């Protein structure tokens, strides 16, 4: 089994879905980018599916392309893409019946030099948790846990990352979870948008986005992959993700029936989730 075999299976399936009218659009990848990068593409014609590709350079999260167009949409989904679909359904942004998930077992993507992407190294989900069709790869062993990374949460580290940022918002645009019609950064009243993009204002943006993603990050690494400046802000989001996981035993995008941690309240919720600090209240 290999990318090529998976690719042929996906292509045959996409052709059939489009030809049968089961879906009107397939969001997937085609070849043609520089440095071997695969490009997101929206297929609407069965004949066009010949261009479809699936390889180790299918980086972007495709969830930004799911809305729009008439009829149902199929997505060629890496496990993280599938998790994002599930999360969007949980947050009532998509309806399950409108989306056909073609899930692929995935061993991770690589950068232009062929090195595994950091998010893929840490990934612990190599089979989509929810799918309509599964394109398996028996050569990919089931993962029990991703590589553990030590997390330095010092202010110095935060500042070092922030200083690389040029505040272009490509991480926000790449993130499945950043779907607000008007981002808090773009609001006029109150004016969150920094008057002058200095270090503090960049911190405000990244800290704000991190908190908005509490319990919602699907760990796809799209933010990091999109960043041309080499900023790693994912470490901060990972910290919050782990915190939510410990507190509420919740992981975004894994279960269609689970209520998102930030959308539910129970009287017994631990106080540290509200007030922070070391106190527990129980």
């Amino acid at each position, binding site marked *: 089994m290999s990318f090529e075999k998976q690719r042929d299976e996906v292509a045959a399936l996409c052709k059939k879905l489009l030809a049968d009218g089961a879906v009107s659009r397939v969001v997937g990848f085609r070849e*043609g980018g*520089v440095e071997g990068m695969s490009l997101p593409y*929206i297929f609407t014609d069965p004949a066009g599916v010949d261009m479809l590709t699936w390889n180790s350079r299918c980086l972007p999260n495709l969830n930004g392309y799911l809305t729009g167009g008439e009829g149902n949409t199929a997505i060629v989904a890496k496990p993280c893409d599938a998790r994002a679909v599930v999360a969007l359904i949980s947050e009532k942004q998509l309806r399950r019946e409108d989306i056909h998930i073609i899930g692929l077992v995935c061993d991770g993507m690589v950068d232009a030099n062929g090195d595994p992407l950091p998010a893929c190294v840490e990934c612990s989900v190599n089979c989509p948790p929810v799918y309509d069709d599964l394109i398996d790869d028996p050569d990919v062993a089931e993962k029990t846990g991703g590589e553990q990374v030590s997390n330095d949460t010092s202010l110095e580290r935060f500042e070092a990352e922030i200083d690389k940022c040029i*505040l272009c918002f490509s991480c926000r645009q790449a993130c499945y979870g950043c779907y607000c019609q008007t981002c808090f950064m773009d609001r006029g009243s109150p004016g969150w948008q920094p*008057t*002058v993009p200095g270090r503090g204002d960049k911190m405000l943006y990244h800290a704000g986005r991190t908190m908005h993603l509490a319990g919602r990050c699907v760990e796809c690494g*799209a933010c990091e992959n*999109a960043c041309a400046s080499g900023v790693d802000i994912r470490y901060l989001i990972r910290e919050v993700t782990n915190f939510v996981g410990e507190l509420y035993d919740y992981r975004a995008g894994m279960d269609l029936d689970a209520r998102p941690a930030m959308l539910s309240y129970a009287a017994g919720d631990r106080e540290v989730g509200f007030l922070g600090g070391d106190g527990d209240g129980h």
Partner: protein
Amino acid sequence: MAISKDVMRGFLAHLSAGRTLIGPVDTGKVIEYRKASPNEILMDDRVSYKSIKEFYFPQVERMFTFSEGEVQDHDNPAGCAIFGGKPCDLEALRVMKAVFTTGKFADPFFERRFDANLLIGVGCIAKKPGCFCDQVEVDMAFSDFCDIMLEDSGEGYNVEYLSEKGRQALNEYPPTKDVACGNTRKADPPQADALALSPAITEAGFFEAIDWAKSTETCQGCGLCSFICPTCHCFDFRDSSENGTVHRYKCWDSCIYPKFTLHASGHNPRESRAARYRQRLLHKYRYVPDNFGLTACTGCGRCVRGCPVGMDIRQVVKQVMEVQP
């Protein structure tokens, strides 16, 4: 005059005594121009993810302070010595100089940096993935829009000066004092696959030339391309007030952002992402050529390499060219 790269490092060390030295540095994750010591500066053929434009047009620049009825100008910048601008960057600076300093209004903030900086260009040895300078009449190895130009042979540099400022700087350092004046050299004639839009078509004609929505449907609208572009030069004014003192800043902006054209009435003439992408492309390939006689894309390829979803401006320009008469 041919010199070794060690001699060039010596020259940079000499320059760094009196000026802030800027050059390409490998930060481990990216290559970028920043304040650097002569030994940190890269002298290989790799290319940075951003251009040198921030040393002429910073992302944030304080223009003046207004306090108790008095306007105070500041930040008269000390000049930098910038090493390693690629020919695409230098040609982009030519575009920026035209935009900022010709016509009815000149931008003093750009102008004073331009006058204060010393710019050392370095030619490329090879094209990188996504580079297309040859398709927009830019010579990969040489540009005369700098003070000193170095043509890279791999082992060393062929050095020429192209301005009085460049001549003086070289003259002050004994090993480079005999460098000769460079010739202005015309770029190779346009190739068959040159990217240019026909002046015969009206602006409105381009608006419907292709299905812009289809061609740009995977663009995520992040605006990264305009920030890392060497020629994108749009900015916005921002004021910040503190205890009755107001600072006015000039900050990078991008036509890719929806707020760029949002009117106070709530109307937005460029409501769709496709309309915004079209503006960026036509600005580079039609409006600046019309107004200044220069193409505002120098084929550096940074947007092509940097785009998170692989949008490729060359492909969209080609689509437009295919339908133009």
